[in-house]
């Protein structure tokens, strides 16, 4: 009986981790890929001083946000959703939704940044070649995105890797409530503090396995993509 609860709880924790980080990355990709693609296109910049200024500022901001400390994100989300905060009336604090929002704020800059540089690295040559072959600007842009697909995929994997291993942010906004908002990383923290090293190490092994599976999939896709 005790055994079964142990594994049940582990399953619950693992699934919640996957759900929170997976949802955050999915929504993050829907927001980040279009923005990253847009910023990666150089045709918009350099011509006018204002465009150049916006370009420099947005790049610097994105790079800063890519390295944003999760704890700080957690704190800000907490202050927004706490009962006396501006969004407190939503009652989202200490829910998986709050955790998803926290991770979303973390992963969007990562997806934008990596997509932007992937698109930027092929944009000039591929766009020009496509135009020279008779493509419209829209057709050329689509081809650029297609050629940058490996980089876009990398951005998603990098974002998921960061999200699944993140602890500080979701600890604050999720509250690490058993059977409700406890994820692999927050559980490891609490189990270690309680001296339950078996549980902590099991969770750690699962976390590592998920990371490995994701990277394995990425490598296979990359090898296929390069050598097809």
């Amino acid at each position: 009986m005790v055994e079964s609860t142990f594994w049940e709880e582990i399953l619950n924790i693992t699934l919640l981790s996957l759900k929170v980080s997976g949802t955050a990355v999915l929504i993050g990709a829907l927001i980040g890929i279009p923005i990253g693609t847009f910023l990666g296109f150089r045709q918009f910049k350099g011509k006018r001083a204002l465009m150049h200024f916006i370009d420099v500022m947005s790049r610097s901001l994105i790079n800063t946000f890519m390295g944003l400390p999760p704890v700080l994100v957690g704190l800000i989300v907490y202050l927004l959703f706490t009962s006396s905060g501006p969004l407190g009336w939503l009652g989202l604090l200490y829910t998986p939704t709050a955790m998803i929002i926290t991770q979303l704020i973390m992963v969007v800059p990562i997806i934008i940044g990596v997509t932007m540089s992937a698109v930027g690295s092929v944009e000039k040559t591929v766009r020009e070649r496509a135009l020279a072959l008779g493509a419209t600007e829209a057709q050329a842009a689509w081809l650029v995105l297609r050629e940058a697909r490996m980089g876009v995929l990398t951005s998603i994997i990098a974002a998921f890797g960061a999200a699944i291993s993140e602890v500080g942010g979701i600890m604050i906004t999720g509250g690490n409530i058993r059977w409700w908002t406890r994820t692999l990383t927050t559980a490891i923290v609490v189990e270690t503090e309680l001296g339950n090293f078996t549980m902590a190490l099991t969770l750690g092994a699962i976390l590592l396995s998920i990371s490995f599976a994701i990277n394995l999939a990425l490598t296979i896709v990359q090898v296929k993509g390069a050598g097809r």
Partner: protein
Amino acid sequence: MPIIEVQNLFKEYSGRQVLKDVSFTVNNGEIFVLIGPNGAGKSTLLRILDLLEEPTSGRVLFNGQLVDYSSRASKNKVALRRRIGMVFQRTVLFNMSVFDNVAYPLKVRGESEHIIGQKVKEALELVRLSGFEHKNALALSGGEAQRVSIAQALVAEPELLLLDEPTANLDPRNVSIIEEILFRVNSERKTTIIMTTHNMLQAENLAHRIAIINGGRIEAVGTFQEVFGKPAESVRNFARLDNVFYGFSRITTEGTSIIDIDEGLQIEAAFRKIGNVVVHIPPEDIIMSTQPLLSSARNMFEGRIVQISDMGHIVKLKVNVGAVKAFTVQITKKSFREMQLTLDSKVFIAFKASSVQTI
């Protein structure tokens, strides 16, 4: 009837004049070859003709119609580009199969699958790459990749084909395949071709007319013989030799000639000539040193070794002078060892004015 008329074209990049008052006409069905050193403005000129860049001033007429370069005319630009095929100097292929690469220009034009299948097959036959359909384009050799990009440019049967040094850095076999493709396309489909090259032999073999472009200006236009004032055969033997340069020659007050072979790079020769010349300096006449020499040699340049070829008891070295001009120098292996030369060594090369032969 002219297909292209270029009138008083100027192009400026952040204050630097790349094209200066360029005017010429290309007739329908012609192979027109632009010859000139790197940085002469050849690529920029082709990019303007393909509407990838707009001129600072001047006009281009395509089949008698004025080309609108303004950003308002983007629809017209696409329509016009679809009548022109372009091959870049640096091959850009997409990360997909050879078939999909060649099919791309037809797909963006909304052609049916049936037509695409048929035309891609024909284009691949033309560039002698039948059977390569399912290979990934990024896995091809340099010569094969360049031929795929020629197939891309030709698959939609353009009226005008632009090629920017299509055979630079390719092995002789691929060069001759490409020359044959261009000859066939021109004679069978009557496609007009404008191409740039460094290779004099290629210009002489393919071109109906040539233009010499140097420092952003067109210096001469005409048949090979008209431009160089010589039967082509006399140039032929030297075309693939090392140290062949062309430029404008003028006579100095001392009775020698100064030839501008590149911007800022001048060779002094013992002959007296005015006009465009092709000159040759035998590699064995060039003296190489690690320090500047005080000598009677009228020509001395500082350069860097960019290539070393061991030919047995002699060593052939390629020395870059300035950004682009490469001289081939031949020295004995013994001197090579004693001077302790390596790649990227700074060296001085010197040769007498009388070693500069006109071809």
